[in-house]
């Protein structure tokens, strides 16, 4: 009897959760579906779910606007480039804070996190003018610099929390064996912390890929990543739903797949340790 009632509630919860989840996912699902329709089917007032002539024409059209590859490449260079540079700077800092703690470590860490809370408009004009004067406007290099700096606090923070989980004794043992600090980090710390470093990298690639303030403001035709390219569909091209969908799908699907692998890191990285 009790079993039956718990089974019944399980069915109800399952139905409820799937329908709410489906509603939340719907806009993405609809975009994917529309990307395979013809333009006339895409705006049909009687849209059909699966019974339409599936076509790859939109993807071909979007890719034939040859800049698409250019923008896709920009997104890859900016997000992966800034994450790698960021790691190079953040790993030594996180090592120091995790293994050579002083009284100031906590304050330093909190100060670093606080820089992430500075609203971008507070530094908008100086950055714009400096970029103009140093000829960094609309360059990939400029965006790699900005992305590295805005994500550096999160990288240091995440690496710090991963490093803290490594027992200090392991590092001390390597020091006893005469390893210098470079060897200690390279051969002892990095292999142990590799999963943590990988997820830090992953989360930062995602955050930089989707960043849509500086990428929109500091780029034009040359260095614009996909965020800025898609923004150009604002009007009137946005009314070609099927092409908009195909361009969107290609911009979103890779990062969606990476995102599903990084759920846990998302909580860790973006909650600044406020949630355990």
């Amino acid at each position, binding site marked *: 009897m009790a079993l039956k009632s718990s089974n019944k509630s399980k069915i109800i919860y399952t139905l409820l959760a799937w329908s709410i*989840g489906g509603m939340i996912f719907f806009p993405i699902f*609809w975009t994917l579906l*529309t990307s395979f329709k013809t333009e006339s089917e895409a705006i049909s007032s009687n849209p059909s779910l699966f019974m339409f002539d599936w076509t790859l024409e939109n993807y071909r059209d979007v890719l034939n606007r040859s800049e698409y590859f250019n923008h896709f490449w920009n997104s890859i260079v900016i997000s992966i480039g800034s994450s790698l540079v960021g790691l190079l700077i953040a790993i030594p800092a996180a090592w120091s804070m995790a293994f050579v703690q002083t009284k100031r470590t906590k304050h330093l860490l909190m100060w670093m996190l606080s820089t992430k809370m500075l609203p971008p408009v507070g530094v*908008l004009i100086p950055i714009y003018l400096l970029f103009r004067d140093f000829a960094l406007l609309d360059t990939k290099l400029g965006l790699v610099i900005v992305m590295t700096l805005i994500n550096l606090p999160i990288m240091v923070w995440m690496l710090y929390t991963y490093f803290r989980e490594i027992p200090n004794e392991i590092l001390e043992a390597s020091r006893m064996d005469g390893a210098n600090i470079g060897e200690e980090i390279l051969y002892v710390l990095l292999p142990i912390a590799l999963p943590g470093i990988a997820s830090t990298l992953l989360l930062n690639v995602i955050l930089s890929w989707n960043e*849509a303030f500086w990428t929109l403001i500091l780029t034009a035709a040359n260095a614009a990543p996909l*965020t800025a390219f898609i923004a150009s569909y604002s009007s009137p091209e946005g009314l070609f739903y099927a092409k*908009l969908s195909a361009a969107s799908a290609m911009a979103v699907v890779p990062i969606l797949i990476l995102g599903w692998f990084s759920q846990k890191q998302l909580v860790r990285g973006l*909650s600044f340790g406020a949630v355990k």
Partner: protein
Amino acid sequence: MATTNSRSLARLMLFPSVVLLLAWMIVPLCMTLYFSFLDYNLLSPGTEEFIGFLNYEYFLTDPAFFQSFFNTLLLVGGVLLITLGGGIGLAILLDQAMWGRNYVRIMVLAPFFVMPTVSALVWKNMLMNPVNGLFAHFATWIGMTPVDFFAQIPLLSIIIIVSWQWLPFAALILLTSIQSLDREQLEAADLDGAGPISKFFYIVLPHLSRAITAVILIETIFLLSIFAEILVTTSGGPGFESTNITYLIYTQSLLQFDVGGGSAGGIIAVIIANIVAIFLMRLIGKNLEG
């Protein structure tokens, strides 16, 4: 000896991060502060002069500022209300026994990974368009007049889009927190004959309070700077109806080239964000100790 050695080494390794962040934060911020006291327009370079607090006076007494300030409050408040309400509901639901929970979780989480320009344009064109959008088709189908979202309710439309993007974040953090709830406490309450409502208010909600505070503060920091969603949907219009402070400063600085006024606005935005940040830092500080 070894410790002093490793101390100075540690300082050396911290150096790049600290210097870069310091430069990134202090240098431009000081420049913004300096510009905010100048009459400085990019269209007439070389004519800058010191005008004291006049930029602040203009910015703060501009009716556009009041409207944007109010819009910012509505935007942040509205999104917080929707994402927290929905997030708590989803967290409790996803905590129940069910089939395929991981798949539901993946679906719920997905919007967070969609880049802001894509989600804004997909909602604007494919769902909310008054002629060909899916909502308009649906309204016609049930015999209602379609709503022209961005003309009639521009700010609310943006609130809906942004809430869709941030609901996953709230739900995920609250779910993480709810899963650490002591099950025995709930079972004990069951034995004492507590109903679901009193269990929610006396056990679940207090347990979630810390996570809820964190969600509020973190979302507020990010929501104060909403930009792309406004740029690609309404460009702040009609009039200033969907302009927030961030967008107002952007138009003043980079569309009207008024560096002085834009900088004054930037400093005000920093002050507003700092008020929230202080509370967030306090929460983080407590957790770092505990």
